[in-house]
């Protein structure tokens, strides 16, 4: 199964270079791929991994260097041309057309038709077959993509890359997966891994970008480590330990995060009582203390994001009370504006869609929630605004050309730091982080963890929603577990284990199977 070291090269690139305004994204990088191998590409954000795979997939063109595919020169001018050569890529950011159905997305560009009329039945049947393979078998192929969770959408993307190649009749020979598990649950990830192994067995070369070392160690045959646009090392996976890889990535040894458990926790900062919203959130009650990090674990669709949005006033809640800062009177939170005034902050799961103004500069993004404070009689104090942005860039180590650089040009980790800077400039007391490290590299992830712990140390109440259980177990003081809209348990550090948390996360799914649906509907 594992490719032979001197097996013929399917694809090789020599001295590949690419620069963007202000950044040398790739600097004379050599890279090669063998048929039937999983080649992991690791490195911090901005190390050049995404740029390298974008060159392979024909999305951007190199400034220098060249590729050979089967020994012939390969210089794709477009993604379509790369696809015609059997090279498919699943993007890091979702790339689906929201209003089209799952089947239409999978077969986009290659829909079966007769005289221009789509043969829906045939397409849906074929889509169902592909969907079953990636574990989406229970969904209706005719469902519009915008009705799916982000995790499910990610699986549709993978289905489209694998199945789309089948539809286009160009055999998929190289599959590029850019952080495929970033928003998948453990079960969904397992299905993905099985799919990857199946494809490798069929001789497909897979480029696998991930920040999760356990995945890389488990799947990869070879690992290439990148840093600052250069290739640092390529080696068989079995010859590198996780510590070796991280050391090569950051260029310095990384100290382990240790959260001192317990004794920081003080008065109640946020008390939620019997909060309900539609079928997503049901009768949820909990308390969050100053100086603690309270994690929220659960499967995709367990209602964690919906709960946080309801607390923040982004969605209307049906029932329930929210009490802030030890007050006995319920807080009136009817819009995010009320929430912000009362000292709440919400960093959303979907940075690009809801957290940032992409074309706007870093400066404009950071100042947005505090513009009124930065202004005098409605006129923005430009100097104070720039000073705030410059200070934030230094404080959070945001990698950028200047404060005037548009947010769209930043890497995921740096975009997330901009969102955090934007909120921390305001003196919020209760901070809610929804998937704060989704799609973020080891180095930036470490920075963000440190930051969350630092916030708790400064007596803030910090709520963290994450699908990465290990992350929650590293940084949290207590973990609340949700299952199908209900809070099924809150475990302190001394009592939790991965098994216990998973059992709580699944508890209502198991009940549902035993025929508790009627109970569900009546609440």
């Amino acid at each position, binding site marked *: 199964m594992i490719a032979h070291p001197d097996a013929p090269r399917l694809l090789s690139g020599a001295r590949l270079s690419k620069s963007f305004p202000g950044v040398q994204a790739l600097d004379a990088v050599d890279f090669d791929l063998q048929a039937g191998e999983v080649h992991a590409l690791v490195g911090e954000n901005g190390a050049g991994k995404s740029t390298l795979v974008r060159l392979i997939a024909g999305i951007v063109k190199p400034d220098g260097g060249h590729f050979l595919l089967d020994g012939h020169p390969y210089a794709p001018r477009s993604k379509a041309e790369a696809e015609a050569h059997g090279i498919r890529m699943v993007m890091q950011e979702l790339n689906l057309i929201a209003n089209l159905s799952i089947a239409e997305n999978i077969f986009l560009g290659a829909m079966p038709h007769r005289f221009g009329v789509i043969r829906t039945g045939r397409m849906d049947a074929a889509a169902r077959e592909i969907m079953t393979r990636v574990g989406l078998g229970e969904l209706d192929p005719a469902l519009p993509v915008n009705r799916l969770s982000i995790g499910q959408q990610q699986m549709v993307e993978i289905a489209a890359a694998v199945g789309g190649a089948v539809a286009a009749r160009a055999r998929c020979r190289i599959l590029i997966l850019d952080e495929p598990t970033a928003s998948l649950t453990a079960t969904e990830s397992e299905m993905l891994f099985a799919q990857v192994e199946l494809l490798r067995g069929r001789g497909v070369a897979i480029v696998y970008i991930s920040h999760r070392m356990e995945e890389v160690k488990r799947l990869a045959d070879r690992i290439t480590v990148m840093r600052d646009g250069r290739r640092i090392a390529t080696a068989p996976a079995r010859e590198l330990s996780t510590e070796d890889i991280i050391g090569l990535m950051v260029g310095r040894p990384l100290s382990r995060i240790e959260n001192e458990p317990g004794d920081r926790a003080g008065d109640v900062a946020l008390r939620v009582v019997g909060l309900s919203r539609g079928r997503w959130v049901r009768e949820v009650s909990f308390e969050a203390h100053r100086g603690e990090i309270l994690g929220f674990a659960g499967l995709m669709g367990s209602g964690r994001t919906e709960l946080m949005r309801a607390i923040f006033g982004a969605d209307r809640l049906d029932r329930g009370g929210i009490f802030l800062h030890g007050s006995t009177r319920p807080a009136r939170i009817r819009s995010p504006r009320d929430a912000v005034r009362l000292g709440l902050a919400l960093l959303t799961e979907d940075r690009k869609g809801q957290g940032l103004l*992409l074309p706007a500069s870093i400066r404009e993004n950071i100042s947005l929630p505090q513009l009124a404070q930065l202004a005098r009689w409605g006129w923005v104090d430009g100097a104070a605004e720039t000073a705030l942005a410059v200070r934030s860039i230094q404080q959070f180590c945001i990698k950028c050309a200047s404060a005037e650089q548009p947010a769209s040009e930043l890497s995921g980790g740096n975009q997330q730091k901009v969102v955090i800077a934007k909120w921390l400039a305001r003196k919020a007391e209760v901070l809610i982080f929804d998937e704060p490290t989704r799609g973020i590299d080891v180095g930036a992830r470490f920075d963000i963890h440190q930051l969350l712990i630092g916030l708790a140390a400064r007596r803030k109440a910090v709520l963290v929603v994450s699908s990465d259980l290990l992350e929650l177990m590293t940084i949290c003081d207590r973990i609340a577990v949700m299952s199908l809209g209900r809070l099924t348990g809150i475990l302190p550090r001394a009592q939790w284990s991965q098994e216990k948390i998973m059992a709580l996360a699944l508890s209502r799914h198991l009940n549902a199977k035993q025929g508790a649906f009627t109970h569900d509907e009546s609440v």
Partner: protein
Amino acid sequence: MKAYKAGISMRRVLLNYLGLIGVLIALVAAFGLCTDQFLTYQTFDSIANQIPTITVVSIGMTFVLIIAGIDLSVGSVLGLSGGLLGYCLVDAGIPLGLAIPACLLAGALCGLGNGYITVRWRIPSFIVTLGMLEIARGASYLITSSRTEYIGMRIGWIADVSLGGLSLPFLVAVGTVALGQGLLTRTVFGRYAVAIGTNEEAVRLSGIDPRPVQWAIFTMSGFLAALGALLQAARMQSAEPNAGYGMELQAIAAVVIGGTSLMGGRGSVIGTFFGVLIIAVLGTGLAQIGVQDPTKRLITGCVIVVAVILDHYRRH
């Protein structure tokens, strides 16, 4: 850091308007070469007299487009507010000091209606303002009994006031440009407007209520249409129910030539002013070299399309 920022913004100003200034100079030079009459005081005086109305209306439209809306009713609202002004002065005998506020208030109320309905029921502004286009035009005919109200010098004197060789309407227009640009780029309000046009949900989740900004901008668009009506009535010394017919499209053309995005989130009031000037110079110049009206429209249409294509290249 400050000096660095200033450097960027100066370069940006030049880059942003270089294309528009270039087109304007090229047009003036070309017409100057074609006919001796063009480069005369009379030509520029006539342009300065023509543009105040369309300038103020286009400024309102600029803000509406920046928040990713559209206001198709400006021409009709202009007709209605002008009609009301004529009715007050001629039929009802109300003094000018009350008639003018009434006219401006009528425009602002139409705008507020557009804004409130658009925001409250989340209906596309295209549809809401299309309705208002018909409502205001109908009301304009009713109020004037479909006749042109001749007002005379009771209003005409406004157009004759001149300060340093520039007429009062022209100064009002230029002053509105300056105010509008300041509002857009230097105030919290302007920043919110651009942010709403870019990503309304992100703005809402940043703890900012976008609705007051949206209401204010539609109200402002209606108010500026009424101001346009006032300036037009002063120049014509009359109010006609047909005034402003089709002006919404002229305004959108000027705004888009000026580099404001129809998708929202990007725009410039100064750019809009250049757009107005380009269309006015083109119209006047073509008339002077004897081009007939149908040909004029054809050429103006081509210029709009070419300007937008050039804008695309400047940005990419």
